[in-house]
C-alpha cells in the first residue's frame, strides 16, 4: 500500500509516453483524404482533438491494466486473497464528474464548429443535384441544362439543393468532408466552399440498391471564369443535342 505513490508516478509517466505513441499511431493509420473545402479545416481540428483524447484515455486504461497484470499477478505458492477493497466514493465521483466535463467541452466545441460550417453566407450560389438509381443529374436553378458532371467554382460558397427520383441517396465528396442524405419527397441542403481546383469524385453514401457501389459522378472544381464559361457554352451545346 505505501508503495502506491511510487506506482502512480510510474503509471503517470507511462501514460504520458503512451499517449504520444498512440496518437502517433492513430495519425499514421487514419489517413484522411485531402482537405479541399473551408468546412474541412474546423472539422479536421475537431477530429484531431478527439484523437488526442482517445489516445490519452486508451493509454490511461491500458497502462493501468497492464501495470496491474504484472504487479498483482499471483506468485507461485501464494494462497492469499486480494486486498479487501470495496470501492471508493471519492474516486467514483471523480471519474463520473471529470468525463462529464470533458464531454460537455467537446459538445460545446462541436456546437461552435457546426454553427460555423452550416451558416449561410451572403454570396452563395445554388446548384441542384438529383440522385437516381444509379446516377446523378446536375443543373442550375434557372436553366434547363442538365449535366452528368458536377462542375463547381473555386472559393465560392455553394448550396447544393438535393432531390431524389426514387430512394434514399447521399451526397458526399470525401475531400469536402460534409455529407447529406437525399430523401425522396423533400429537398435537403448541403453547404460547402471548395478551396482547391482539381478533380474529385461524388459518391453516394446511402445504400440505394443493386449498383450503389457504382453510383459515382465526376466532380471538377474550376476557376470562377471557367465555371461561368462551362455553364454558358459547353452545357448549352451539350444539352441542345
Amino acid at each position: 500500500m505505501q508503495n502506491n505513490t511510487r506506482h502512480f508516478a510510474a503509471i503517470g509517466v507511462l501514460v504520458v509516453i503512451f499517449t504520444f505513441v498512440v496518437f502517433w499511431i492513430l495519425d499514421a493509420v487514419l489517413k484522411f483524404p485531402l482537405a479541399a473545402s473551408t468546412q474541412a479545416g474546423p472539422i479536421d481540428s475537431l477530429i484531431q482533438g478527439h484523437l488526442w483524447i482517445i489516445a490519452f484515455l486508451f493509454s490511461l486504461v491500458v497502462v493501468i491494466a497492464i501495470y496491474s497484470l504484472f504487479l498483482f499477478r499471483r506468485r507461485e505458492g501464494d494462497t492469499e486473497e486480494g486486498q479487501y477493497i470495496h470501492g471508493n466514493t471519492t474516486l467514483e465521483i471523480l471519474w463520473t464528474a471529470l468525463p462529464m466535463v470533458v464531454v460537455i467541452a467537446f459538445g460545446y466545441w462541436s456546437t461552435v464548429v457546426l454553427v460555423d460550417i452550416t451558416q449561410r453566407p451572403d454570396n452563395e450560389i445554388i446548384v441542384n443535384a438529383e440522385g437516381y438509381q444509379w446516377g446523378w443529374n446536375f443543373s442550375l436553378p434557372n436553366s434547363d441544362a442538365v449535366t452528368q458532371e458536377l462542375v463547381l467554382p473555386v472559393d465560392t460558397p455553394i448550396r447544393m439543393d438535393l432531390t431524389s427520383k426514387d430512394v434514399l441517396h447521399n451526397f458526399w465528396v470525401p475531400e469536402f468532408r460534409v455529407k447529406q442524405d437525399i430523401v425522396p419527397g423533400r429537398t435537403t441542403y448541403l453547404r460547402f466552399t471548395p478551396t482547391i481546383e482539381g478533380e474529385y469524385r461524388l459518391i453516394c453514401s446511402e445504400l440505394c440498391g443493386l449498383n450503389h457501389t457504382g453510383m459515382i459522378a465526376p466532380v471538377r472544381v474550376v476557376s470562377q471564369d471557367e465555371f461561368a464559361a462551362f455553364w454558358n457554352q459547353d452545357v448549352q451545346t451539350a444539352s441542345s443535342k
Partner: protein
Amino acid sequence: MSLFSLGLVRAIVGQILGMLTGMATTMLIRVMLGLPAWAAEPSWTVGAIFSIIGALWAVGALSDWAKWMKGEETPMHHGPPEGKPAWTRYFGVDYNHKVIGVQYTVWGIFLLLVGGTMALIFRTELAESGRQFLSLELYNNFIGMHGFIMIFAILLGIGGMANYLVPLMLGAEDMAFPRLNALGFWFNVPGSLLLLSSLFIGGWDAGWTAYPPLSARGPIGYQLFFLGVFAVGLSSIVGSLNLLVTILQMRPKGMSLFKMPIFCWAVFATSLIQLTATQLIGLSFLMVSTQRALGMGFFDPGLPGATLMTGLGDPILFQHLFWFYSHPAVYIFILPGLGIISELLPVFSRKPLFGYKWIALSSLAIAIVGFLVWGHHMFVSGYAPVLRYAFMYSSLLVAVPTGVKFFSWLGTLWGGKLTFETPMLFVLGAISVFLIGGLSGPILGTVPSDLPLHDTYFVVGHFHATMFGGFVFPFFAALYFWFPKVTGRMYNETLGKIHFAIMTPAFWVQTLGQMGVGVMGMRRRIADYDPTLGGGSIEAWQLSITIAGFLIGFGVLLMLWNFFQSAEVGVLAGDNPWRSRSPEWQIPSPIPEHSFASPMVVHGEPYDYGLPEPYVAFAAAGDD
C-alpha cells in the same frame, strides 16, 4: 425412436406445412373475392405468419395453453421425456431453465457460424479490389443477412446466459413462467428459419437497417425477413418479461437488489430495454410490410404535388421508429456482456468488485440514457437541424456511465491476486476491445466529426469493436467459465489459450483496419472500392482484414472442438473449480434436475473474497 419424436424436426415440418396452409388460405380467399389465385406478396406473407404458428404448434410449445383454454390441468413434468433418451430433451419443448439456457446458447452459436460464414464469403470478395465472384445482388443480400443473423445470434446468446444463470444466481427453482420461457425460445426457431429462407425467394437488399423506400420496393424476401424479425422480437419481449418478474419477485430472503450478483443487474437493465423498445422495430417493419402488401403509404411521399389523401408519407419517420429500438438494442447486446466482465473479474482477482453500486447503477443509467440518443444515427438524414444538437449532447452523455465501468474494473484489478485462466484472458481481451469500440463512439457522436465518417467503414469498425468487446469476448469468457458447471468437466486450457492468442490480435487488426479504410473514404456496403484510396495503401489493409477474419473464424472452430472433446474426455472439474462465491458454484456439477436441494439463505455479500463469511448457504435438509 422415430425422427418425429424430435421436437426440432416436428417444428420444421410444422413450419413448412404452416407455410403451405397459409398460402392455400390466401389463394382460397382471393378466389372467393374474384381475384387471380396467385399473388406472391400476400401469399408469402400470410404463409409466413402461418408458418410461425405451425412450427410452435407442431413442436408442442402451445399445447399447455391450449389445455388451459379447455380447462384441463397441466401438471409440470420434470426430467427428460419418458421413453426417450435423455439427450432428446434438448431438441424439444422442455420447461427446465437450464435446458432452455443450453438451447438458446447452442442455437445462438449455430447462427453465429452461419452469419460468420457469410461474412467470410464477402470478406473474400473484398480482399482485393475489383469484383471477383459475388454478384452485386448476392453481395447486398449477404451484408444485410450477415447483420441480422448476427443480431439474432447475439440475442440468443444473451438469452442463453440469462436463462441459465439468473435463476441459479437467485437461488430460484426456475424462472417465474417456465412455459412462457419455453415458448420464448421456440419463437426463435421459425424466426431464424424464415430469415434464412428469405434468401431463396429473392432475398432483401437494403442492409440490416432496411430503410424504405428501398425496402418497400425490393424483392419478396423482405416479407419473410420482417416476419422472422417479428418472431424473434416476440421472443425478446416474453423472455425479458419473464426475467424481470424472476428478478423482482423470486429473490430469496435477505437478497436485496443491491446484494444480487452483478450479472442480474445487467440482465435487469437489458430486459427493461428489450421489453419496451423491441415493439418499435416490430412496428416499423410491420408498417413497411403493410406498405408493400396493402399500399399503406406511411413512408411513401407519393408523386409531386401529393396531398394527405394521396401521399406525403415520410421515409425519415421510419428511421426514427427504427432507431428508437435499434440504438437501445446495441445496449441490449452489450450490457449482459459487461455484466459478465464485472462478474468474472473478482473471481480471478480474488477481491471484491470495485464500486458494486456504481456499476449496477451505471447499467441502469446506460439503459435509460440509451433511449434518448437514437437520433445520432440520423445526423445527416435531413431531419430538423436543431435535433442534431440535442442528440449530440445526449449521445455524449452515454460515454460517462460507460467510463465508470472501465474505471471500476481497473479498481478491481488493482491490489488483486490475478491468475490468467482462459475466461480471465477473454475478459481482459473484452476490456481491450470494448475500449476501442467505446472510444470510437464520441467521435461519431459529435456532428461535425460524424459528417466525414457516417456511412463509412469507420462506423463498421466502431460497432464491430463494441459488439465483440461487449458481447463476443465476454460470451466466450462465459462459455469457458461455466463449461465445467454445465458439463461437470474441464475444457482444455492450452487450446483455450491458443484460441485467445489467435483471436484477440486478429480482432484488433480487423477493427483498426476497418476504421482505417473508412477514414480513407471507403463507404460501407459496397462490393468494390477504389484501389487508389489512402495513397494506394487500402488494398494491403483489406487483405489484412480478410486474413484476420479467417483467423477469428478458425479460433471459434477451435473453441467448439475443444468443447466437444472436453465434454467427453475432460478431467472432472469438481463443484467449484474457480473457488467462486456465487450460488451456482455451491451446488453439484453438472447441476441436478432440481438445482437446489434445500432453500438458499443469504449471509454476506456476493464478492467479499477474503472474508470467511460465505455469500449464501443452504438450510440443512428438513430444516425447511
